[in-house]
Structure formats: structure tokens, C-alpha cells
């Protein structure tokens, strides 16, 4: 494992997004296409979605998330089409008052997505 530690008096370079009062945690997750799939080298993954249904199912998941945690905002980007290895296919950003709910909400969102949102992949 590579290790990198910085203790600094300067602002952190990777600044968080604009926060509302009372918000103290932002969890950002990137899902990245691995260069292997089931032991075989791949160049990319081609993602296909039933887009109308995917938007609806994501909406239901956001509704459930909002009822369960005091989340300020959710931003999610899922790429479609061919995504080369080592590029991000998914980005999730959750803003909440505290880290526990931000992490839990992020896990919940991704788990629900993998269970319910009609997106499929074909390794290439």
C-alpha cells in the first residue's frame, strides 16, 4: 500500500463543495472500471441503461434515502456507453450534517442502485 500523509497549515487543495450551515460532511465516491473482469484483461465496459426507468428508480431510491437520513444533497453521475478501463463510471456525492449518515447514505444508495436500477454492462 502506498502511503501519503500531509499535516498542513494551508487550506486543503481538494476543497469541499459549497456547504449550507449545519452541514459538516461530504462523502464522494468514484466507481472506476477495473482493467480485469473475472481474471481476464479488458479494455473497457460498455454500459447500457433503460434510461426512463433508471431515472424513475433512482428517484425512488433518493426518496427512501431522504426519509432515512438528514441528507442535504445527493449528486450522482453514471456514465453510459463505452467507459475505458481506469476511468470513472460512477460518481456519488452526499452532503450531510455528520459523517456517519453521509457514509451510510452513500452505501445505501450504491447498494440499492446495484439491486434496482436497470443498467447493464458488457466488458470489452
Amino acid at each position, binding site marked *: 500500500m502506498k502511503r501519503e500523509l500531509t499535516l498542513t497549515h494551508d487550506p486543503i487543495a481538494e476543497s469541499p463543495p459549497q456547504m449550507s450551515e449545519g452541514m459538516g460532511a461530504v462523502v464522494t465516491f468514484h466507481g472506476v472500471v477495473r482493467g480485469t473482469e473475472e481474471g481476464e484483461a479488458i479494455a473497457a465496459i460498455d454500459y447500457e441503461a*433503460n434510461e426512463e*426507468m*433508471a431515472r424513475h428508480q433512482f428517484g425512488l431510491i433518493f426518496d427512501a434515502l431522504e426519509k432515512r437520513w438528514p441528507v442535504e444533497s445527493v449528486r450522482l453521475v453514471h456514465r453510459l456507453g463505452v467507459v475505458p478501463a481506469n476511468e470513472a463510471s*460512477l460518481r456519488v456525492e452526499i452532503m450531510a450534517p455528520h459523517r456517519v449518515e453521509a457514509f451510510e447514505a452513500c452505501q445505501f444508495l450504491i447498494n440499492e442502485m446495484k*439491486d434496482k436500477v436497470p443498467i447493464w454492462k458488457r466488458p470489452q
Partner: protein
Amino acid sequence: MKLKVKFWSYFRDHTGCEETTVEMDDGATLADLMTVVYEQFPKLTGTEKCTLKAVGVEYQDDDYILNDGDEVSLFPPVQGG
């Protein structure tokens, strides 16, 4: 009644088409439709247990009663992320 059935992901490889139209009697359920689909596309046989079914943008169970003009989506387990 007339129904549109759409196939997604590798199910299209089994059917050789993106969608088809099926005529069913009024009161037919999703299970009744699946019987017709498996007769029409025998290569889908074997996918029964993993097939997810939606009418419009909502998942539905086999006992869902279909309506004229419904658009049914059939697809394998989802793999987002």
C-alpha cells in the same frame, strides 16, 4: 389487448430483436405473457429465475394484470456501478 415487450442487455442476443408486440386476452397477467414470450423466443428458456420484469418504469410481479398498450420490459439482473 396489444402489448409491447422490450428486451434489454443480453436478452436481446437470445431474442434477436429489441422488441416485439404480443396480443393477449383481457385480464392476462404478466405470468401469462411470459408463457407466450418463452414460446415465441425459446432461447430465453433457462433465464426464468433471473428475469426481472417491469411494466412502464415500475417492477411488477407475475400476478400483475396487464392493460392494453402496456410496455413490458424484460431484463437480466442489473449491474450498475
